[in-house]
């Protein structure tokens, strides 16, 4: 089975190269979506051996995932994995999160960071719980890590996936899609790597609030 890793990257020149190199032996293709970065993200990714699709403007995480999935579907891939470019995921987890799809037991797999609780800083854990609760209230599905960046889609699920949210709301939107399409979900524990660098990335408090606000507006008005 052909596995494609989709790596959305915005100004991740410091880490994207090593992330791509760590993925190389484990997947058949790597698509890095350079989301309008101002640094050397695209060059680092290409040098490391990834196929690079560049956004000429920064369009956000959801837009980058959408582009990466579209690029991956162009080829005859069977499983699409989304993988963060900031180095917070361990490439060794790819095997575990793709397994349920290989076995035909799931359409989508989410890598759950909260299972080994002590690995996650308290502030992140609280923010994560709020994200989960909000996702549940708005979209009616409880997942244990709604904001996780490590997921695997079967080809069929990826084809059905319709991403309308361009920014960080995409994580919750994917949960909505699970319910909407009736995908079989499996949650697999993964090992997050919290370095100072990966902690500085991702959603800070203010961005998290903005994401929550946008989700709320969307749910109420659309």
């Amino acid at each position, binding site marked *: 089975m052909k596995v494609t890793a989709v790596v959305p990257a915005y100004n991740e020149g410091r880490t994207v190269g090593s992330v791509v190199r760590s993925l190389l032996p484990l997947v058949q293709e790597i698509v890095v*979506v*350079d989301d*309008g*970065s*101002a*640094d*050397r993200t*695209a*060059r680092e990714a*290409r040098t490391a051996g990834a*196929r*690079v*699709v*560049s*956004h*000429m*403007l920064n*369009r*956000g995480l959801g*837009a980058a995932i*959408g*582009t990466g999935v*579209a*690029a991956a579907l*162009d080829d005859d891939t069977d499983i699409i994995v989304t993988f963060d470019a900031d180095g917070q995921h361990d490439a060794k987890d790819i095997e575990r999160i793709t397994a349920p799809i290989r076995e035909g037991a799931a359409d989508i797999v989410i890598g759950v960071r909260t299972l080994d609780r002590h690995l996650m800083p308290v502030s992140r854990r609280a923010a994560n719980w709020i994200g989960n609760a909000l996702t549940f209230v708005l979209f009616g599905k409880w997942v244990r890590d709604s904001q996780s960046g490590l997921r695997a889609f079967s080809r069929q699920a990826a084809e059905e996936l319709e991403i*309308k949210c*361009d920014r960080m709301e995409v994580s919750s939107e994917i949960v909505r899609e699970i319910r909407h399409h009736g995908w079989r979900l499996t949650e697999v524990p993964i090992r997050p790597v919290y370095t100072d660098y990966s902690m500085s990335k991702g959603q800070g408090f203010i961005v998290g609030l903005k994401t929550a606000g946008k989700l709320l*507006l*969307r749910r*109420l*008005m*659309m």
Partner: protein
Amino acid sequence: MPDWRGKIFYPRYPRYPRSTYMLLIQIFILGFVAFALWRTVGRFRAGELKRSALALWSVFWVALAVVTLLPHSTSWLASVVGVGRGVDVVIYLAIIVLFYLVFRIFLRLEKIEHDITLVVREMGLRGVEEGAEGAEDMHV
């Protein structure tokens, strides 16, 4: 001649029936409600509004119509929160109009944002190799 000194004069309003004052603004509000309902249904038919949003907005506008036709139904609320002046109605009306406009702008902005994303995506996918080089040069 009565002695007016020291007395306070209150101006006398023209003696129209009270209902005449209300009628004009009632017509305005009802007309606006009709317009808003028409637009809401139109947007639903065009597929821009979900069924739940249609229901929400319809309830909102119909509630406004009921309150307009039976203003006394709000008097208890007015007394509770402490407003009872006619000028407040104008302010409320303005807020409603603003809210409606903000709603429309929000929808349009979201659509434009997403359209930009679709264009950027298409350009990125078409220029996987050579376009990417050019885009990189622009930033560096």
